[in-house]
């Protein structure tokens, strides 16, 4: 009896029917009888002393139930904590009040909240809140913020430096002395806005009788939100329930614990009404964490043959006005430790200053630190190739960690689990027909057309991660994951995962894993997530960890089901447990495959418990808490082919090819989707997106009319391919794929544009490569 293999199959998603029929429930779709609406009044000033906030007129407005200021919250709502306290960096953690009390530090910081019986009444009343301030000088640029005399944003944080972190290994000084070539380059990895299509929102309901508080919210990690909000609100964890209903994308922006949800919960507790809050897009741009924002001075040392011997750099990371939940870890642990890329670079010296500015806080955004590292390293590799007049492909090959050297510990101290970088690059070169492209390029150049190719051979740290390491690097939590597999009496299965997918498709891929492991039809399996009252502790979805860690937990739980099933099957079949085999959903006796019980029959007997072996507990379910022994390190090789219009500076992507290796693949359709989405965001950073502040701290790209989220017509068709190098430590060989596209694509595009402009002698252009920037570089090179 053959069971169709589901692991690795292109199965269409099981979450889709509700999403394509408009019957899914997102947070803002929730309505509770008696529900009120809130509007949070936000500072239009980047930096100001608060002289007076008056909510009296707002309170008197018809329909208004309550209005609060920061003073009303004092002693009742604790400051918003940072949860990644990187050690050895002299990290400063200035208080972050849920509503500003005496000072505002960025445009968008909450200063008051209004609760009313209707959306309109709340909005009207919010406009009646009077805020009188004394504006203070603001600083938005991290380098300027470090200068003597710059506005001081927090007490006790001299020069606005939140931390200074360093990773160093080998003898960098000597490597530079002995280098044949040294290249120095300043690069900017500009600020981005995550732009999940669903803005943040929440609904809070408090039961005064029981003391139970329920918050439905747009969360990537409801359990982390429960722990943190429990501390902020002073509600015991077992009285607090966080539910992440359907969540419309996150890309990191729904990881942090923001002030807003705490304020809304406070309103529910104070008024006794269920309370809803939702940001509009403009508010989202101001109040939801941004990503990236580095200025880096880099140096690379290399030998004549292309061997890269050292990288040295100083990174100035803009943290915004307050430390967001994971902010200190992003430009350090997730960034600095990846500065070797897939190469055997033996000497590294990299320091990072985390700096406060009067801007929206910066935190994880898809890739979180790794896109920045990959961008710098891949640009440097191209610069070395150019300087040595070598093919960028050759320089990469020269420096790749050889496939027989894994597990490989790079200079920054982390150990890559497995890799075959050469294989992914070879696959890529075959697909793009590289030698032919170079011929075409020569021809184009002769015709005055600027055709270029850019490579990006990347490795990323994924599957976050071993909890011991998390603790060692100051993450105030763990990174294992939970899975509960419950086989019901009728053989149907409910799976609970502590990860919290919000578009990544694990309701499907996890069902595939269970179906494969238990031989149960996929239609009989349901995957649930996102409710702290239903799910054992979990750590959520980010860092490409859901399948990599949650999937491993699920595998372990399934194996426990099989083990337990074997015991009962042996009893029912009157055989020894050692002689029971399990395959395709059947327990059978070795050598007598007809003496068998299906897993459904075994499940029923386990629940009926009429005839169990001695000491056998009824029911058939298993829980696993899986802590991975290492991170996973997906990798790949991407190539982008562009044509640059020398008259307008417009970059047209003619081809984009991504060869990724994320270990074994559960569902190729979903993996392709993850890669595509990542590419769009990485290309967006390379060509279009830029969160831009003026010198006074006003976000000038404050709406979707001004911030360029890529449109369908601005992106090319994507070509994807894969190599498969299983993770040796993951029970299913998986690695994770959620961020690869974003991490790899930005440098591929940037390298392609610079490659296209080779005849003009252009060496570097900072991203985003908008037409004015590219044109300015061309004009400068032409001496026009």
């Amino acid at each position, binding site marked *: 009896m053959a069971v169709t293999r589901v692991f690795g199959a292109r199965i269409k998603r099981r979450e889709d029917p509700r999403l394509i*029929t408009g019957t899914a429930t997102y947070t803002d779709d929730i309505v509770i009888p008696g529900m009120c609406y809130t509007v949070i009044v936000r500072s239009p000033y980047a930096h100001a002393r608060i002289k007076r906030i008056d909510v009296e007129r707002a309170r008197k407005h018809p329909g208004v139930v309550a209005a609060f200021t920061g003073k009303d919250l004092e002693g009742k709502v604790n400051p918003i904590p940072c949860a990644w306290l990187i050690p050895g960096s002299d990290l400063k953690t200035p208080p972050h009040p849920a509503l500003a009390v005496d000072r505002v530090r960025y445009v968008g910081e909450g200063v008051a909240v209004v609760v009313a019986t209707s959306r309109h009444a709340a909005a009207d009343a919010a406009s009646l809140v009077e805020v009188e301030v004394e504006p203070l000088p603001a600083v938005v640029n991290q380098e300027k913020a470090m200068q003597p005399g710059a506005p001081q944003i927090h007490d006790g944080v001299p020069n606005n430096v939140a931390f200074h972190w360093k990773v160093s290994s080998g003898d960098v000084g000597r490597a530079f002395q002995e280098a044949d070539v040294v290249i120095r380059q300043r690069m900017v990895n500009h600020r981005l806005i995550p732009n999940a299509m669903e803005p943040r929102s929440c609904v809070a309901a408090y039961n005064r009788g029981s003391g139970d508080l329920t918050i439905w919210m747009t969360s990537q990690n409801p359990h982390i939100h429960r722990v943190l909000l429990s501390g902020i609100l002073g509600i015991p964890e077992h009285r607090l329930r966080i539910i992440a209903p359907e969540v419309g*994308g996150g890309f990191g922006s729904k990881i942090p614990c923001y002030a807003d949800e705490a304020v809304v919960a406070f309103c529910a507790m104070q008024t006794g009404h269920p309370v809803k809050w939702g940001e509009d897009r403009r508010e989202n741009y101001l109040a939801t964490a941004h990503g990236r924002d580095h200025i880096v001075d880099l140096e690379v040392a290399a030998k004549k043959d292309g061997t890269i011997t050292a990288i040295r750099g100083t990174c100035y990371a803009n943290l915004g006005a307050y430390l967001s939940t994971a902010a200190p870890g992003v430009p350090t642990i997730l960034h600095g430790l990846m500065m070797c890329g897939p190469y055997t670079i033996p000497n590294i010296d990299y320091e990072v200053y985390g700096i406060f500015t009067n801007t929206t806080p910066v935190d994880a955004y898809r890739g979180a630190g790794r896109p920045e590292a990959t961008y710098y390293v891949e640009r440097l590799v191209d610069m070395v190739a150019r300087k040595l007049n070598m093919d960028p492909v050759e320089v990469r090959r020269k420096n790749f960690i050889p496939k027989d050297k894994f597990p490989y510990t790079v200079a920054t101290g982390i150990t890559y689990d497995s890799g075959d970088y050469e294989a992914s690059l070879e696959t890529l070169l075959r697909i793009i027909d590289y030698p032919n492209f170079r011929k075409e390029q020569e021809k184009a150049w002769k015709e005055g057309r600027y055709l270029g190719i850019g490579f990006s051979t990347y490795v990323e740290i994924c599957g976050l991660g071993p909890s011991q390491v998390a603790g060692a690097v100051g993450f105030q939590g763990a990174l294992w994951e939970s899975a509960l597999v419950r086989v019901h009496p009728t053989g149907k299965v409910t799976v609970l995962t502590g990860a919290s997918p919000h578009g990544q498709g694990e309701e499907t891929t996890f069902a595939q894993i269970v179906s494969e492991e238990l031989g149960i039809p996929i239609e009989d399996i349901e995957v649930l997530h996102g409710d702290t009252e239903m799910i054992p502790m979990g750590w959520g979805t980010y860092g490409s960890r859901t399948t990599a860690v949650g999937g491993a937990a699920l595998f372990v739980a399934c194996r426990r089901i099989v083990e337990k099933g074997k015991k009962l099957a042996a009893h029912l079949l009157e055989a020894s447990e050692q002689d029971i085999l399990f395959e395709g959903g059947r327990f059978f006796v070795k050598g007598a495959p007809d003496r068998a019980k299906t897993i459904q029959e075994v499940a029923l007997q386990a629940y009926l418990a009429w005839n169990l072996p001695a000491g056998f507990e009824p029911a058939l379910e298993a829980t696993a808490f899986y802590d991975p022994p290492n991170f996973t390190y997906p990798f790949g090789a991407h190539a982008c082919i562009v044509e640059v219009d020398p008259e307008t500076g417009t970059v047209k992507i003619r081809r984009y090819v991504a060869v990724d290796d994320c270990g074994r693949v559960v569902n190729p359709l979903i993996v*392709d989707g993850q890669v595509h989405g990542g590419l769009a965001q990485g290309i967006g950073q390379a060509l279009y997106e830029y969160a831009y502040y003026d010198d006074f701290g006003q976000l000038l790209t404050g709406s979707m009319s001004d911030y360029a989220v890529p449109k*369908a017509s601005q992106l090319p068709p994507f070509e994807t391919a894969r190599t498969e190098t299983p993770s040796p430590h993951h029970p299913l060989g998986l690695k994770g794929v959620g961020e690869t596209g974003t991490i790899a694509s930005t440098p591929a595009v940037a390298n392609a544009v610079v490659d296209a402009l080779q005849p003009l002698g252009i060496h570097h252009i900072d991203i985003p490569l908008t037409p004015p920037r590219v044109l300015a570089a061309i004009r400068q090179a032409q001496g026009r």
Partner: protein
Amino acid sequence: MRVPISVTVNGTVYHHEVEPRLLLVYYLREVLGLTGTHIGCDTSNCGACTVMMNGLAVKSCTVLAVQANGAEILTVEGLARDGQLHPIQEGFWEEHGLQCGYCTPGMMIAALQLLQRNPDPSEAEIRHALEGNLCRCTGYQHIVNAVRYAARKMKESGAMPVGGR
């Protein structure tokens, strides 16, 4: 002040008195409870709120409910008929044209408009037609595939797209 309106939504006639400033999207979501239509921005860039109004795809965040008085509206909830998914819904499902699903209802309505006007669009035409609808998850490749799937399917079955009056 409240203004009486009567609107046909997915074939059902509704009568309500609404505030003149009520946006059509809030009317659909909060008065009728049809929460399949989403709100993703406040500048009519994202298209998450796209619905059909008298056969034309409109952004319901930029239409007042009172302007929809007497109109026929089709929302995502009205795409499937008699439990049968519309070919566009089928295409999005088959081709993995959605991830978080938030932009999907508006995206499908925009696609419907395209296929009504051009039953056999090229890839470039699809990308152009969907410019008013932003998706942050898919990178659009699978959405393009989904629309092509729907186009093929509609051609094969000879089915008229719904809402095409």
